[in-house]
């Protein structure tokens, strides 16, 4: 099994919940979905994987290496797509890409130009003037440009129009062929059903296994 992300006995908690002993491994080339009620801990779990200052107990491995000890090389290969993730507001997207590309060793200018053209992103517009959908598009293009191998998408599709949602998942499917892996959360049951290969339910502080089909009772967690 070609594991890209592995969590071993991971515990994340905040004032509202505690998720204990999370164990799972993501194989390359698939879309994984997380299902759970609001406040179940989905976003916190994703943030603990990506952000250095979100505490967790246990071990998280990216491509077989401890993410804490090899954070920079791991972050170079992880794209985080979320409404919470932002570039600098009062800079154009072109300027943002120029600045942030300095932090990513794999950033490819050609892919960036190709993706922004494909997604119709106006690079001269300030980031704060983008609509929510345009922000997600820009993040997605940036993640592809720095050759992310794992996309973490936290409610990224919420509030997006159907045309862009389709465009987004088509892009992801194209990426899967090249070994991209996606871990996403969504409240849209149909979307999870249609677009993920495996999903797991977070329920009452327990993290279920990733499975290929959505159980009947999964509705109550959406």
């Amino acid at each position, binding site marked *: 099994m070609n594991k890209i992300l592995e969590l071993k006995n991971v515990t994340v908690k905040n004032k509202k919940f505690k998720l204990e002993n999370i164990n799972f491994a993501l194989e390359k080339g698939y879309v994984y979905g997380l299902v759970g009620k609001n406040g179940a801990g989905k976003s916190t779990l994703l943030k603990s994987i990506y952000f250095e200052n979100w505490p967790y107990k246990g071990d998280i491995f990216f491509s077989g290496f401890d993410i804490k000890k090899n954070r920079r090389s791991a972050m170079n290969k992880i794209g985080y797509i979320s409404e919470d993730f*932002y570039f600098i507001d009062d800079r154009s997207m072109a300027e943002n890409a120029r600045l942030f590309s*300095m*932090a990513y060793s794999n950033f490819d200018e050609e892919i960036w130009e190709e993706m922004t053209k494909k997604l119709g992103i106006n690079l001269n517009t300030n980031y704060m003037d983008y609509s929510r959908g345009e922000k997600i598009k820009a993040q997605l293009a940036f993640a592809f440009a720095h050759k992310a191998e794992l996309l973490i998408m936290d409610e990224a599709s919420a509030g997006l129009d159907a045309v862009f949602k389709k465009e987004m998942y088509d892009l992801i499917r194209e990426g899967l062929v090249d070994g991209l892996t996606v871990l996403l959360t969504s409240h849209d049951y149909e979307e999870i059903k249609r677009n993920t290969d495996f999903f797991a339910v977070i329920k009452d502080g327990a993290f279920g296994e990733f499975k290929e089909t959505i159980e009947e009772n999964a509705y109550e967690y959406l």
Partner: protein
Amino acid sequence: MNIFKNEEMRQIDGFLYEVNKDADYKTIQRVVGYFFSILFIVFSLFYTCENDLMYASFYYAIVLYYFGKLFLTSEKIQVFHKGITQQKQLSLLKVNRVSQLMLLTPFNYKNYIKLRLLDTLKIEICVMGIYLISICYIALVSNVTIYPGKIIVVLISQIVILIIEFIDCYLCWKL
């Protein structure tokens, strides 16, 4: 090439320079920074050479110096938004501190902390250099009494400022 900075620290430095290079009030910020630092040196000299009247001035000196240090290094704290008021920045509730920006990049935050401590240390060395040269000069050309114990207190204050800087970085990381 700075031998005290590792590869990633140099990259962070370059990144922060690019982020803030268009800041429109950098010059005035530097002038204010130097003004407070000079005030600190003057107050420290009074403190070191006076017997009992200027104890309170040392306290003010530390506070003023900390302001000076903040002004000199605040490009490491604030992401400048050209043409956007602070009020608007706050209403946007988006990235306006370098610490937040750092956490959105693959850069290791520890290297960012090291960079900030190194920058603080650089300023402290300059300020202490001027202070010690001034003390030596005063000792040579005048008959003013110099209290060595107070020189040590001034030097200890620099360590305190470094600790404050570290706590500031750590709190940014935690929050």
